[in-house]
């Protein structure tokens, strides 16, 4: 039982890390630019599709990854230049409407280019296979690599935000935007940088998850809602909050699914427990969010209500 618990914790952390990579960009864009980007999830999807394409073209995972990232960055800049730039000064609702439209366009575009059949990306040989962990239980190397990569990215973000001038501007921008522009900072440039960087992080998450999940046109929508849950629980604009909330959501979701019915069996009979368990399991993260917001209306690390 302890083995299983540790294993599930690892799984939860791995899901959390993925969510963090997508959420980090979203919370920055939201916190600093005060911009609701419904289309953030499609960048994750586009990252995965680009990865699938370049792996086929280059035949090499390690070659395809940087190429896909460069392409995703270009795509992000293109979107910023053609669409998002015109929306910064508009109301949240206009942003919702326009980026919702963008989701439809990109999703259909992906279906037109790549078709409806799901695609896949093979795991690179270097990271394939499983390693024994805790006796009989195996754990896939690739998932450990995802966790490691995510932690490195999180650490990098932490260093950039807390120990560089750019990071200082980002933090200042998140807490008081007019002040930053009053200080003579080129806000337009800062915005473009934040946006492109956030887009690339989401695409990176999509690219590294492509060997684990099927690449299909529904993957953007499913991750989008989870990501919003994460940034709201963490508090909008807070990278630290996004990290904590992402891990929390990942672990609660994973453990709830596997241990929920077992825990419930202690208080009710098995069939009722399994019925209740499977009704509650998908609701858990929403219950978590509702409870967090009921107690802390601006999220765990949110400074100001948005």
């Amino acid at each position: 039982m302890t083995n299983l618990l540790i294993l599930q914790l690892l799984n939860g952390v791995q899901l959390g890390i993925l969510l963090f990579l997508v959420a980090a960009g979203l919370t920055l864009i939201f916190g600093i630019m005060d911009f609701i980007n419904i289309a953030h999830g499609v960048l994750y999807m586009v990252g995965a599709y680009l990865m699938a394409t370049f792996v086929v073209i280059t035949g090499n995972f390690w070659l395809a990854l940087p190429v896909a990232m460069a392409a995703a960055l270009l795509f992000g800049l293109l979107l910023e230049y053609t669409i998002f730039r015109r929306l910064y000064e508009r109301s949240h609702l206009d942003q919702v409407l326009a980026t919702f439209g963008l989701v439809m366009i990109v999703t259909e575009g992906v279906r037109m280019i790549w078709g409806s059949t799901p695609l896949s990306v093979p795991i690179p040989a270097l990271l394939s296979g499983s390693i024994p962990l805790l006796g009989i239980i195996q754990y896939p190397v690739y998932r450990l690599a995802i966790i490691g990569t995510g932690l490195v990215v999180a650490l990098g973000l932490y260093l950039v935000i807390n120990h560089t001038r750019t990071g200082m501007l980002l933090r200042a921008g998140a807490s008081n935007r007019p002040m930053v522009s009053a200080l003579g900072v080129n806000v337009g440039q800062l915005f473009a940088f934040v946006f492109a960087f956030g887009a690339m992080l989401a695409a990176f998450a999509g690219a590294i998850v492509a060997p684990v999940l099927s690449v299909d046109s529904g993957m953007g929508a499913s991750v989008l809602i989870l990501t919003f849950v994460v940034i709201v629980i963490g508090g909008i604009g807070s990278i630290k909050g996004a990290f904590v909330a992402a891990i929390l959501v990942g672990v609660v979701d994973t453990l709830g699914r596997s241990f929920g019915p077992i825990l419930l069996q202690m208080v009710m009979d098995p069939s009722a427990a399994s019925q209740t368990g499977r009704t509650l399991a998908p609701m858990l993260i929403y219950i978590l969010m509702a409870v967090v917001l009921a107690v802390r209306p601006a999220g765990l690390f949110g400074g100001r209500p948005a």
Partner: protein
Amino acid sequence: MTLRTATIGAFAAAGLVGGAAAADEIKVGLMFTLSGPAAVLGEQGRDGFLLAVEQLDGQLGGLDAKIIVIDDEQQPDLAASRARELVEREDVDFVVGPIFSNILQAIHGPITGSGKFLISSNAGTSNYAGAECHPNFFVTSYQNDQNHEVMGAYAEREGFASVFLLAPNYQAGRDSLAGFKRHFTGEIVSETYTPLGQLDFSAELAQIAAFQPEAVFAFMPGGMGVNLVRQYQQAGLGDLPFLSAFTVDESTLPAQQEAALGMLAGANWAPDFDYERSREFVAAYEERFGSIPGTYAMQAFDAAMLIDAAVRAVDGDLSDADALREALRSADFDSLRREFTFGHNHYPIQDFYLTEAVQREDGKFHTSIVERIFDDYQDTYADDCEME
């Protein structure tokens, strides 16, 4: 607001010039899920049917066929509305479709209630097989439980002492596990239900590893199946027998690839089925659409051939519904499955097979028939149907 009278160009009936009376025409509405992530299944159904009409020179039963293709968008209320549109406004003679059971539930009433014929080329729910069977409803696929029953019977025969069951938490998922258990008497170590649309199965795979069952049975259609199968291999469970239904098939194999090789499934057909007509169909479909057809396409193709034969049998007289129904019931057509008859509840009586995912010489993946599990098998709900 004209409707999708999308008589798709290449397939369009060889139109009769001049005042062709409506009586010389047969109208069929195809309702499949053609947008969204699940579109790949609907596209197979649509293409399978249209291929049949194309091979029949744009005719069904000797009448010029007008095909109206409708997207149900996997939204039941929209599907119900568009189904009524087909029967009330377009006055179609037949509706063929849909893929998903909840769509079937939504469109069944509007179509059969209007006196038109509904031919399901995929969804086959238990209620319409049993107590709610309807004279104007026919199914060319299967009853939903049957492919799962095949795997239960196989697991029983192989003598697996313990099996781990896995399905999404929705009606079809619950039916699936019930179907598996119908013929399996060994130990079920766990019945695990996952939220619909779940993408990461690490929690469940860890449990499987912990339980160490002798086999796993899973029902995970679409993208969920792609993820499960690949993650199953990645978790190092490859040596544990993987039994499934609707999880490893021609719609998911292009993404599962090597990860699915050797995995077992229950089905009523596979592309390498040993029958001349079936081989011709697979070759024609591949040439036309560039992919290997799965059962979704095969069943829609058979639906077209069923209509063709029935209309021919009544000499193109669509006005006599009773005669047409009798002709449909006789199922006097050359099915791609070789043997095909209807039970009194209008669900098929057919053979079921154990299939295995294999790779063809040209590198493409498909399912391959291993052996026959059930002979002339009828669903278990038919007894509740009071139709003669």
